[in-house]
């Protein structure tokens, strides 16, 4: 598909009649797991997928500790059923972007950015189920061709924009970026099948619509934060594999409303599973230079669980990083609130001190930075902090 064709397709999608979900979704079809690649292209996809899986398995980005991958796989199994999830391998990669994808050989890749943004097991399950749907429908085999035109455009932009970095879509499989992009009809089919999984799973069906609404709202926040008009396009990047639009979230919501409203989203279980990884995910997100989107994520986490010490600290970090005078004032406030809410790490004293110092509140800064040095005399930045105090 040529670049202009992609744009046209996106615009056309907005005027398509939504699929009919009027009646309750019919039962899931029987599942035939064994699928051997038949055509030359399919064998190609399998080989590429096997090679990529080997890279994922050995990658330093993989989050191996703490059973996170096992948990994510359990969520998938609860969503699509044991028959379907048997034989699926799940890899969680520490990449601060919303993404999940499944390859033709049964390997599923989930990025930590998705885990940061999902607000419940049901929302995570909705995304994983949607990706599994593409796999069950063999869309992964067709999506490969569509990707090509996006990278053509990107390559020209690279050259003419003078980007210094190496062309990342290199010959060897790159760990950043996904391989697949689906067209509108395929997204709808995957939504349809995903809905069937959800209806059988025990999760509330409205989660499917809510996760996309949340994505759009975050994109809006990102745009506003950058001084752009929101609601122009809903991809978080032109080459996102999850183009989402208002109509889609709407029809998913309508369909969910037609089903009985019960179901357990398992919010508490989700929060507990993610908790050990939350601060590192937040720290990485803050470093993406997306003030609006990050602020949105923090507010969203707080609205369901309250402003914990950890969230207050992250908010302070976000504002201190942007660093306008008023930001620094707010940051100082929130560091103090975080401390009051139980965030005890000495790093808080240091960062509070840096915010105060940058804002000209030298005496207060000295107290905080001094407290940090007392607690962490051997810290890797101790000498530098001392030098700042010596001014």
């Amino acid at each position, binding site marked *: 598909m040529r670049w202009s064709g992609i744009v046209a397709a996106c615009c056309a999608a907005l005027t398509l009649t939504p699929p009919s979900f009027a009646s309750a979704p019919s039962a899931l079809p029987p599942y035939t797991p064994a699928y051997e690649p038949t055509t030359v292209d399919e064998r190609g996809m399998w080989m*590429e997928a096997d090679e990529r899986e080997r890279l994922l398995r050995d990658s330093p980005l993989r989050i191996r500790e703490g059973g996170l991958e096992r948990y994510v796989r359990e969520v998938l199994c609860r969503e699509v059923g044991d028959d379907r999830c048997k034989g699926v391998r799940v890899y969680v990669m520490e990449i601060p972007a919303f993404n999940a994808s499944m390859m033709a050989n049964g390997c599923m890749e989930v990025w930590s950015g998705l885990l940061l943004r999902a607000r419940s097991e049901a929302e995570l399950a909705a995304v994983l189920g949607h990706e599994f749907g593409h796999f069950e429908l063999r869309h992964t085999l067709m999506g490969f061709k569509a990707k090509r035109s996006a*990278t053509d455009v990107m390559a020209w932009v690279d050259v003419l924009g003078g980007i210094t970095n190496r062309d990342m879509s290199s010959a*060897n499989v790159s760990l950043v970026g996904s391989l697949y992009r689906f067209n509108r009809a395929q997204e709808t089919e995957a939504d349809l099948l995903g809905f069937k999984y959800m209806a059988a799973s025990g999760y509330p069906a409205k989660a499917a619509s809510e996760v996309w609404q949340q994505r759009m709202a975050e994109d809006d926040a990102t745009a506003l934060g950058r001084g752009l008009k929101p609601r122009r396009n809903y991809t978080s990047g032109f080459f996102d594999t999850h183009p989402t639009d208002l109509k889609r979230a709407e029809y998913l919501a309508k369909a969910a409303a037609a089903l009985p409203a019960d179901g357990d989203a398992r919010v508490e279980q989700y929060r507990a599973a993610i908790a050990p990884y939350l601060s590192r995910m937040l720290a990485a997100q803050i470093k993406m230079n997306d003030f609006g989107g990050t602020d949105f994520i923090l507010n969203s986490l707080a609205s369901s669980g309250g402003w914990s010490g950890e969230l207050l600290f992250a908010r302070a970090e976000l504002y201190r990083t942007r660093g306008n005078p008023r930001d620094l004032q707010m940051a100082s406030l929130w560091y103090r609130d975080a401390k009051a809410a139980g965030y005890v790490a000495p790093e808080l004293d240091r960062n509070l001190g840096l915010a105060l110092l940058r804002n000209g509140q030298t005496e207060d800064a000295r107290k905080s930075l001094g407290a940090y040095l007392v607690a962490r005399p051997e810290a890797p930045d101790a000498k530098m902090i001392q030098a700042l105090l010596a001014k």
Partner: protein
Amino acid sequence: MKGGLIVRAAVFAALVALSMPGIAQERTGSKTGFTLQPGTARIVLMRPTIRVGAQSTGGMPEPNADWTRQARENLTRALRAAQERLGNQVIEYDEGASGEGQIATEYGQLFGAVADSVIEYQFFVGNRLPTKKRKDSFEWTLGRGIGELRSLTGADYALFININDEYGSTGRKVLQLVALMGGVAVTSGVHVGHAGLVDLKTGELVWLNADAAMGGDVRTAEGAEKRVAQLLEGFPGRPSEKTIGGQ
């Protein structure tokens, strides 16, 4: 206007391509005075990277597994046959119980970075580094650490092979030329073939063969033999063999 700029740049680059075949890359470099007498060395073949497919402008390979599986089989067979002609013992890397799989992978990645640098800054004539332009200068190394790997004990050399056999589209070649004109380095990603030999006593890259215009259809046994012959052409100490068809 961006579109117009693309067109003008492409036309200019195409003209340049027509008139300056000298942009073609060199093929082989080796450490000054390095030779390898047949029968004298034990060579470990590191896990080769082999992928065969067509490549679009955006540098995205279209894999074709028939080709890849056949290519791997044929190339392995051809390498084994070439062993005899090389007159040296070539064995495949085996991590065994050493636990060194991860670091072997890192050395493979480092080899890739070094080979890329040799190609980008020494072989690619228009982009040379002045300090590496001097005659007989081929000073590249992976460092002494590789010789200390337990899983490489007893071996004298490590042979690294990458074959990403992407028949670049015209768009891709134009892209590279435009990039060169603009002083922007677009890594080819089209490392169509590297074979590199690392001396495990010193870590030096004593020989590298890289060529953007490799011949031989690796799907066939003959093509694989030809490709291996090209990859190993100029292999130190081996009597040189003319490639079939000279392509």
